[in-house]
């Protein structure tokens, strides 16, 4: 009874904090510019199904792909066990589903156990890749500090979770062997049937009961902690990868989005179009300089980024030592959205008249933007269809069109196109190659 009350109180508290956290993320994402994701739902569902659920793009590199798959499948399947933990937690029952499901119950729990072992191995390898072998893409400057710790927290939580599962199941199996009525038979679990008795078989019954309860609580408390922590973590990708892949752009990678307002302006200037009767005289800001001027789908992508750094590892600018890192671009957009969100929450700013004197250009320097070759390697590399290039190009547009800045070296090219119709200032005829 006491345990039930405690369980319900903790669940409700965790749910409240998680709700607040996720609500805040949703609000931050919606700081972006309203833009419709248009058309082709069948292809969008296909993308979500293959890329997010099926992890298709992870399999470019099979080792991390399989390790990640173990963690992912273990995580998803373990949620089945959570249903029972909730039932038991609220009603004070013990392994409520076991008598009803019989052999199927044994099968499900055994599957969870095998996957948990695989996930355990994967987690150890992942920790080593980050902390011992120091894989290059985890050592970049943008990962210093919290992002580096964040990744380790999540991996350590995974280990704690797995310890919880095996204390719970192993303790249970050891107690079942002693014929205690409360610990009714559940069939032979794949791992804890031998792990439980061999670890806990020699201990006194009250100690083993304690271990079983400890495992049960450790499991559920880790899950609650994870849920509440998630909105503060790069690990949000486990949820946001789904909407993010659904909303990902479907056009050829080479295509840059048109700017109809500029198109209209230019056509009027050239006498190809007439101004709208009710058009306002002042020009809007062009390109993007802040989260408010990026389409919300791109802010969603920023929150979906799990900082794996495959983009940065593939970026020709980054791997030749330039400052540009596509991963940092995504992290900067997210951090700026977080900053705006905090100012809104503290009441120091309002959404209607937001002005904290800062913009994305306080996070991203022109040097980074100017290093991009628009080669799309980052876009190709992202396992969840994030497009850092779109953001870079919108910032470049803002730099050139609104700030009238940008590399001076581009001016002769601009002038040549405007005055000569060619990307270089040439005095020769365009067909002089014929002679």
């Amino acid at each position, binding site marked *: 009874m006491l345990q039930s009350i405690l369980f319900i109180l903790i669940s409700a508290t965790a749910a409240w904090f998680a709700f607040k956290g996720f609500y805040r993320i949703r609000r931050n994402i919606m700081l972006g510019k309203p833009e419709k994701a248009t058309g082709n739902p069948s292809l969008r569902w296909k993308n979500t199904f293959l890329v997010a659920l099926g992890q298709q793009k992870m399999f470019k590199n099979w080792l991390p792909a399989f390790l990640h798959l173990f963690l992912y499948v273990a995580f998803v399947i373990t949620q089945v066990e959570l249903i029972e933990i909730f039932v038991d937690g609220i009603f004070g029952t013990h392994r409520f589903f076991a008598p009803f499901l019989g052999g199927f119950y044994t099968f499900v729990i055994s599957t969870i156990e095998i996957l948990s072992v695989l996930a355990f191995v994967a987690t150890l390898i992942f920790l080593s890749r980050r902390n011992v072998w120091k894989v290059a893409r985890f050592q970049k400057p943008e990962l210093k500090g919290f992002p580096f710790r964040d990744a380790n927290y999540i991996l350590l939580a995974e280990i704690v979770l797995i310890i919880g599962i095996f204390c719970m199941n192993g303790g249970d199996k050891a107690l079942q062997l002693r014929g205690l009525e409360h610990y009714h038979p559940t069939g032979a679990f794949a791992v804890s049937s031998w792990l439980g008795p061999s670890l806990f078989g020699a201990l006194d019954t009250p100690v083993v009961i304690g271990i079983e309860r400890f495992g049960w609580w450790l499991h559920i408390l880790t899950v609650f902690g994870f849920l509440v922590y998630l909105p503060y973590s790069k690990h949000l990708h486990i949820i946001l990868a789904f909407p993010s892949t659904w909303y990902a752009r479907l056009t050829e990678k080479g295509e840059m989005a048109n700017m109809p307002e500029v198109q209209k302006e230019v056509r009027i200037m050239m006498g190809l179009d007439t101004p709208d009767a009710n058009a306002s005289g002042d020009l809007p800001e062009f390109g993007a300089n802040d989260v408010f001027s990026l389409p919300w789908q791109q802010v969603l992508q920023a929150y979906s980024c799990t900082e794996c750094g495959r983009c940065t590892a593939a970026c020709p600018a980054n791997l030749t030592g330039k400052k540009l890192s596509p991963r940092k671009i995504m992290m900067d957009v997210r951090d700026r959205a977080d900053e705006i969100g905090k100012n809104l929450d503290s009441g120091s700013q309002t959404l209607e008249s937001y002005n904290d004197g800062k913009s994305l250009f306080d996070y991203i320097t022109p040097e980074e933007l100017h290093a991009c070759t628009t080669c799309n390697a980052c876009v190709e590399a992202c396992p969840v269809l994030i497009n850092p290039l779109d953001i870079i190009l919108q910032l470049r547009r803002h730099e050139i069109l609104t700030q009238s800045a940008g590399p001076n070296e581009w001016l002769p090219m601009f002038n040549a196109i405007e005055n000569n119709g060619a990307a270089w200032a*040439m005095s020769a005829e365009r067909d002089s190659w014929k002679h």
Partner: protein
Amino acid sequence: MNVKTIAEYQAEGKSPEIVFWVGCAGSFDARAQKITRALCEILEYAGVEFAILGNEERCTGDPARRAGNEFLFQMTAAMNIETLNLYGVKKIVTACPHCFNTLKNEYPALGGHYELVHHTQLINSLIEEGKLKMKESGTFKGQRITYHDSCYLGRANDVYEAPRALLEALDVDLVEMKRSRKNGLCCGAGGAQMWKEDEPGDKRINLERVEEALSVEPGVIVANCPFCITMLQDGLKAKEKNELIPVYDLSEMILSNLK
């Protein structure tokens, strides 16, 4: 070389099958002009009726747009679309993947709808149609050659097979670099980098690419883009290998292999 403009075709009351979009590099860059002439010779050999726009062609606006100068892009694009639509152009071939990408993917939103083929695709279909007869044992037969995927033909537009089919037709010994096709490494010129110095770093991108190419020990490096060719040649020069290893466009190799 007798290549007619579309205006000349129209004066004769005729219209060509296809327009050859030469592009700025193909028009003015000495190295790329050779590719322009090679493609013209191939089209003549195959009996394709084609026209150029001559002085009525302008930069597609690719570097301006990628630099962020949308006004300039819209201006030059609108002028090109006016010209192309005036002549009723339906099909365009280009030897430049940047022109290809802009004309194919970005002009439709501005009212310019054309069927686009990259010259490697067109040459490939001419071979398949039997219009280009290849020598039994050509210059490149059995030669160890590596192929550099340009970003704008490759990742940007998913064209990987047509250029490789040409290499197969040439019967070369193709050795792929580790980073190829979808994972191909940029030459360093895209996104208007061609018109500026690199940002501070450890190395130039074209050097990284050329080192990778050299690691597979090719006799020839082949590309499909005038900007890639410039960058690769510059990289080879920095490595003092430019006298030993030529960089060719696929059209040049095909031309030298025609019967």
